[in-house]
C-alpha cells in the first residue's frame, strides 16, 4: 500500500451524520438505500465472476457498504447485508454468500470508522475487534460442512496431504533427472557440472521435503486456518476502505450527494384540495427556483403547466404533493395524503424510476391493501399484460402506463403528472394524454414542456427566474443554453479550426455496415433477432439521425456503430484509425471525476500539468498548424526522416500526448468550457455535462461519435443547445450519429435522416433543400460558415 495515499487522506478527515429516524423500522429513504446497496453488492459480485478485473469488483462491494454504513443506521446495513446474502446464496451458492458477508461485515466496520473520522489504526482496531470475530463465526457457520462434518473434512484434508506428497514426489523426480544428467556430465569429465547438478537435485529434494511438512502443519491446525485467512482480509479491507471509502465519501460530498430523510405521509383524512398560493417563490434546497407564483387549483379542474426546463414546474408539483415548500401554500389542511386512496397521486417523468415491484401485479398492489382485479385495472389503462410479467421486461410506455394505473387505482382527488410523456415515442404519448383527458372525476395538474395541452381547462406558463439567467449559475434541474460571451463572431471562418483539430482519418468514409444483423443469444435455440440487413455508411463530417420507436433495436444499432457490440451477421468495415465512442443517454454515468477540468484531462488522456485554459489560445497555433497527428494509425511515422534518431515508445507517446493536449486546449474553446473548468460535474446542467463528455472524446481523437437518446426530456431550448453542441463536434472533424425516438427533431446540417422500423433502416427524405449530397463530406464545412444556434 502506498503510504503517501494514506497520509493524504488523513489530512482531511471526513465525518458524516446518520440521517433518518433513530429507531424503529426503516423509512422510505433508508429502505431505498439499503435495497440499492444490496443490488449493487450482488451485481458487483456477479460482475466479479464474469469480468476480467473480478476481484476488484468484489472489493468495491465493501466500499459500497461502507458508504451506506457511514450515512445510515446499523439496522439499514444489517437488513441490506441480509438481503444481499439471501440473493447471493440463491444465485451463486456458498462462495458469493461468503463474499457478500465479507463486504457487509468489513464494510460496516469501515463505515463506522469513516463516519467518526477515525485514523487508520483505530479503523483497523475496530475491524479486528468486531469484524474479524464476526467473519470467523459467519464463515464457520456458512461452512458447517467443513467445520462440523467429519467425512468432508477428512476428504479435503486427505487431498491436501496427497497434493503435498505428490508435489514432493514430482519435485524429487525432477531433481533425480538433474542428478542423472549430472552423472552423464561426470562420465564425460565435466565434474563441476555434476557437482552443480547434484546441488540442484538437493535443492529440489529440500523444497519437496518441505511440502509434506507444511501440509502436516495445515492438517494438524486446520481449525486455525479460517481465523488466519480472515485476519489478513480484515487488515487489507480496513486499509482499503479507509483509503478508497474516504475518497468516495469526499467525492459524494463534493457532488452534493447528501443523504436525505424521506418518509411516507400519514393516511387519515386526506384533504388536498382546494389549494392556492399567492406570490410565492418556490425554493429547492434553499435556493429560489421560480418566479413569484399565484395559483389556485379547484376540485375537478384539468390544469396544464407549461414552461421550459428549469422554470420550477417539478418543484411546483412537489409542493402540491406536500413534499417540499411546506407552509408556503394555502390549503385547508396539510394532509395531502400522497399515495393514499382518495388522496393525492403522483406520476413522474422517467418510466423506470417509478416502478417498485418486480412483477406487474406486485407493482400494482404495492401499498394497496384492498383486493382488486389486476387484469381489469390494467385493461382500464389499455395495458394487456400478464400479471406475473417482470417489470424489467416492460417498455418505457408500458412502465409509464403501469405507473398511471397504480395512481388511478388510488382514486385520487388530486392527480399530479410531471412530464409524464417526455421519454416516450409519439404513439405512447398520445395514448397517455388521451387517457388523462378522459378522467372527468379527478383533479389533474400536469406539467409539460411541449405544446400538447389538449383537453385542458386551463394552461399556465411558467418562466425561468430571470436572475438565475443573468448570473449564469448552473441550474441543476435541466439543460439550458448559456449565454456565451466568448463565442467567436459568426463571421469567423470555420475552415482553419477544422484544420487544427484533426482526427487521424482523412478518407471520406469512416464506417460501413453491410447486411448487418444482430440477435441476442445468437446461435442458441431461443435466439432473438433485433436487427437484420442493415446497410449504412458514415462519412466524415456527417450528422446522421436514426429514429425508431421504443424497442425498435436502435440502441443495439448504436452500440454496433460505436463498436461496443459485435454484429452477429454481415460485415462492419471500419476505416483504419477511426476511433469510435458512444455517449449514453445518462451522460452522468460516463463522467468519472469531480470537476470539469479533471474530467477533461482524464477523458482526453492528457497530463494535468498541461495548461488548457491559458492565454495560449488555439488561434496562436493556427499560424503554425500542427503536423497531421496520426499516432494511432502509424505509431512510428517519424522514424522515416531521421535515421540517427531512433524512435522509441516514449517519443511516440509524447507526440501523441502533445496532440491530445493541443486538441484539448482547442476543444475547451470550441465547446465553450473555459468558464466551467473549475465547476463540479454535478453542478452542471445535463447539456453542459454532455458538452464536457463530447469535448473530452473529441480531444482524445474520436472521429465517430454515437449519441443514444440525447433528446429525452429536453425542451426546445435544450434541443437547440444540443444542435449547437453537435455542430461544434463536427467543426472538430468528428462525425455524429444520433439515435432517438423523437421524430420531430431536425437539426440543421443533418446529412441523412433514417428510420429504423422492424429491424430495417429506411431513408427519410430531408425537408430542406441544399442537403442533396448524402455523403455530406463536402457539404458541411461550407454550411458551417453560418453559425447555427445564434
Amino acid at each position: 500500500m502506498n503510504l503517501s495515499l494514506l497520509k493524504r487522506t488523513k489530512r482531511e478527515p471526513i465525518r458524516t451524520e446518520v440521517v433518518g429516524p433513530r429507531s424503529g423500522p426503516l423509512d422510505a429513504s433508508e429502505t431505498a438505500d439499503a435495497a440499492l446497496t444490496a443490488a449493487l453488492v450482488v451485481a458487483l459480485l456477479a460482475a466479479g465472476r464474469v469480468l476480467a478485473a473480478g476481484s476488484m469488483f468484489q472489493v468495491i462491494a465493501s466500499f459500497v457498504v461502507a458508504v451506506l454504513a457511514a450515512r445510515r443506521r446499523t439496522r439499514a446495513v444489517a437488513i441490506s447485508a441480509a438481503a444481499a446474502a439471501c440473493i447471493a446464496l440463491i444465485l451463486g451458492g456458498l462462495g458469493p454468500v461468503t463474499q457478500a458477508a465479507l463486504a457487509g461485515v468489513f464494510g460496516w466496520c469501515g463505515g463506522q470508522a469513516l463516519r467518526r473520522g477515525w485514523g487508520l489504526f483505530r479503523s483497523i482496531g475496530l475491524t479486528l475487534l468486531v469484524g474479524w470475530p464476526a467473519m470467523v463465526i459467519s464463515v464457520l457457520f456458512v461452512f458447517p460442512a467443513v467445520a462440523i462434518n467429519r467425512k468432508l473434512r477428512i476428504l479435503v484434508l486427505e487431498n491436501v496431504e496427497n497434493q503435498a506428497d505428490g508435489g514432493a514426489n514430482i519435485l524429487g523426480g525432477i531433481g533425480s533427472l538433474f542428478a542423472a544428467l549430472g552423472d552423464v556430465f561426470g562420465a564425460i569429465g565435466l565434474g563441476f557440472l555434476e557437482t552443480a547438478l547434484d546441488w540442484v537435485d538437493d535443492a529440489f529434494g529440500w523444497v519437496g521435503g518441505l511440502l509434506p511438512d507444511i501440509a502436516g502443519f495445515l492438517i494438524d491446525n486446520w481449525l486455525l486456518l479460517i481465523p488466519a485467512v480472515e485476519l489478513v482480509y480484515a487488515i487489507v479491507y480496513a486499509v482499503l476502505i479507509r483509503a478508497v471509502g474516504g475518497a468516495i465519501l469526499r467525492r459524494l460530498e463534493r457532488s452534493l450527494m447528501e443523504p436525505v430523510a424521506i418518509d411516507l405521509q400519514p393516511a387519515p383524512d386526506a384533504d388536498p384540495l382546494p389549494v392556492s398560493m399567492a406570490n410565492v417563490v418556490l425554493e429547492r434546497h434553499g435556493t429560489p427556483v421560480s418566479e413569484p407564483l399565484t395559483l389556485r387549483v379547484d376540485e375537478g379542474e384539468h390544469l396544464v403547466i407549461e414552461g421550459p426546463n428549469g422554470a420550477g414546474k417539478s418543484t411546483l408539483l412537489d409542493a402540491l404533493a406536500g413534499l417540499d415548500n411546506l407552509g408556503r401554500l394555502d390549503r385547508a389542511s396539510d394532509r395531502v395524503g400522497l399515495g393514499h386512496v382518495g388522496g393525492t397521486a403522483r406520476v413522474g417523468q422517467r418510466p423506470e424510476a417509478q416502478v417498485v415491484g418486480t412483477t406487474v401485479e406486485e407493482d400494482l398492489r404495492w401499498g394497496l391493501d384492498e383486493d382488486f382485479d389486476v387484469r381489469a385495472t390494467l385493461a382500464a389503462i389499455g395495458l394487456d399484460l400478464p400479471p406475473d410479467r417482470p417489470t424489467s421486461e416492460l417498455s418505457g410506455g408500458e412502465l409509464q402506463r403501469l405507473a398511471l394505473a397504480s395512481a388511478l387505482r388510488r382514486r385520487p382527488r388530486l392527480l399530479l403528472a410531471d412530464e409524464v410523456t417526455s421519454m416516450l415515442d409519439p404513439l405512447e404519448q398520445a395514448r397517455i394524454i388521451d387517457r388523462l383527458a378522459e378522467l372527468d372525476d379527478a383533479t389533474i395538474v400536469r406539467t409539460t414542456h411541449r405544446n400538447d395541452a389538449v383537453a385542458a381547462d386551463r394552461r399556465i406558463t411558467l418562466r425561468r427566474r430571470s436572475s438565475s439567467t443573468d448570473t449564469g449559475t448552473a441550474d441543476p434541474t435541466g439543460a439550458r443554453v448559456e449565454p456565451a460571451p466568448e463565442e467567436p463572431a459568426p463571421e469567423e471562418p470555420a475552415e482553419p479550426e477544422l484544420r487544427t483539430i484533426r482526427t487521424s482519418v482523412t478518407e471520406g468514409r469512416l464506417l460501413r455496415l453491410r447486411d448487418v444483423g444482430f440477435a441476442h443469444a445468437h446461435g442458441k435455440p431461443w435466439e432473438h433477432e433485433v436487427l437484420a440487413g442493415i446497410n449504412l455508411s458514415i462519412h466524415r463530417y456527417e450528422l446522421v439521425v436514426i429514429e425508431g420507436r421504443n424497442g425498435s433495436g436502435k440502441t443495439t444499432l448504436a452500440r454496433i456503430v460505436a463498436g461496443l457490440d459485435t454484429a452477429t451477421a454481415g460485415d462492419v468495415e471500419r476505416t483504419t484509425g477511426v476511433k469510435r465512442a458512444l455517449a449514453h443517454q445518462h451522460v452522468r454515468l460516463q463522467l468519472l471525476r469531480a470537476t470539469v477540468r479533471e474530467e477533461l484531462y482524464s477523458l482526453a488522456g492528457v497530463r494535468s500539468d498541461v495548461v488548457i485554459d491559458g492565454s495560449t489560445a488555439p488561434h496562436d497555433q493556427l499560424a503554425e498548424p500542427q503536423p497531421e497527428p496520426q499516432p494511432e494509425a502509424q505509431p512510428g511515422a517519424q522514424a522515416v526522416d531521421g535515421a540517427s534518431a531512433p524512435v522509441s515508445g516514449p517519443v511516440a507517446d509524447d507526440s501523441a500526448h502533445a496532440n491530445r493536449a493541443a486538441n484539448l486546449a482547442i476543444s475547451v474553446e470550441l465547446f465553450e468550457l473555459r468558464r466551467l473548468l473549475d465547476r463540479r460535474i454535478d453542478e452542471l446542467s445535463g447539456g453542459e455535462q454532455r458538452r464536457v463528455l463530447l469535448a473530452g472524446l473529441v480531444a482524445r481523437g474520436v472521429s465517430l461519435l454515437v449519441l443514444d437518446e440525447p433528446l429525452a426530456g429536453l425542451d426546445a431550448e435544450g434541443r437547440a443547445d444540443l444542435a449547437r453542441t453537435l455542430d461544434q463536434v463536427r467543426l472538430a472533424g468528428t462525425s455524429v450519429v444520433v439515435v432517438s425516438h423523437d421524430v420531430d427533431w431536425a437539426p440543421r446540417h443533418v446529412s441523412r435522416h433514417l428510420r429504423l422500423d422492424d429491424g430495417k433502416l429506411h431513408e427519410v427524405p430531408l425537408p430542406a433543400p441544399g442537403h442533396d449530397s448524402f455523403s455530406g463530406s463536402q457539404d458541411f464545412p461550407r454550411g458551417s460558415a453560418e453559425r447555427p444556434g445564434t
Partner: protein
Amino acid sequence: MTGSSSFFRTIPIDSPIHRMAAETKVVAGVLISIGLVFNTEWSNIGVAALLLLIAFRASKLPLSVLPRVPLLVQFALFGGLLGSIFSNEEPRLGAFSLGGLSDYARLIGIGFIMILWVGILSWTTGLTAVGFAIRRLIRPLRFLGIPVDEIGSVIALAVRSLPLVADEIDVVNESVTSRPSPADLANKPFREAFSFIRDTSTAVVIGSHRRARDLSMAMVSRASTTAPLPPRADFSRLDIAVMIGAAALAVTAFLVPGFPPNSEAPLPEVRGVVFEDLDLDGERADADSDDDDFEAGVQGVTVRLVARVAGTADQVVDTFETTERGSYAFVAIEPGTYIVEFEAPDGRRFTSPSGGRTDELLLEADEIRADELDDVFAGLAPAAN
C-alpha cells in the same frame, strides 16, 4: 448486456424444470448438497451426479449453457491432478496412486455437482421468481424476531433494481476501460490503481444514489415501504415428489454408509528394537554394523503391549517375540493408554526403559494421521554382578 448482467442468464425455454416452483429447486439442491457433505463416498456422489444429469436433460438446456472453465482454473485443476496421481495414497498402480486419484475425483466431483445445481436453478428460474422464493423461504424466521418484512421488501426492491444497476456497472466499466491510461500517472502504478478504483466506485455509488432517491420517491408515491406478500408458490405433484425424494436421499446419505467405504482412518502403531547396550548408556549407538561398537538387535525377547484403563487391572493386549534383528511392532492399536513391557532373558537386565517397562504411552487416533511411535527401544545388558 455483455458484462455483469449476463450472469442473470435465465434461458427462456419451457421444460418441466422451468415450470417447477423455485423453492423446489432450491430445497432439492440444498438437500442433495447436504447429503453429499454427510456421505462423500462414490456411491452417493454417483447418485447425485445421476440426478443432476436427469435434471439437466429434463430442463432441455443445451450443452452450450455450461460455462467455460477459466484458463487459470484449468491449470489449477490439472496441477491438482498431477499431485494426486503421484501421491503416496494406497492403492497404487506402479508409480501412480489410484487412491489419490479417487480422492481428488471425489472432491472435485462434489464441487462441480454443487456448482451445477446452482447453475440449473439460475438457468431455469427467472430473477423475479427467485426473489419471491427467497422471501417465502425466510418468512418462518419472523418467529425468531427477525424483521422479515423489511428484509423481504429490501430483497424485492433489490431484485427490481438489479438489472438497472447491472447495466449501470456495464456503462461505468466501459467508460473506465475505454479511457486512455492517465498520462501523468504512467509511472505511478499505485496511484493509478487507486484513482482507477476510486473513480469506478464513485461513479457506481453516485449512480445508485440517484436510483435510491427515485425509489424512495416512488415508495412515497405509493404510501408504502412494504412489498405486498409474494404470491403463493404453485406446487405441482412433481414438486412435491421431488422434494420428498430429495429429503429421502439426504436422510439415506446420513444413515447408510456409502460404498466403497472411505479408507479407514489409520490406527496408532508402536515399534522399536531390543538391542545389546554395550556402553550401558540406554541408547542405541548410531554406528554401522561393521563397527566394533555396533549394538546389535537381540532376537527372541518377549514384548507385551499392556492396556491400562483407570480403575481396572492392567491387561495384556498383544505379545511379540523380537525378530532376528531385535525389532518388534504392534500395529492397528485401539486408541488408549498403554505401556510396553519387555521380559528380560535370564541373567540380563534392561538399561532402558527402567525395569523393562515404559512410561504410559497415550496413543491417539486422528482422521488423517494417527500416532506412530517407532522409537520405543529397549537396551539389554548383563545383570549387575
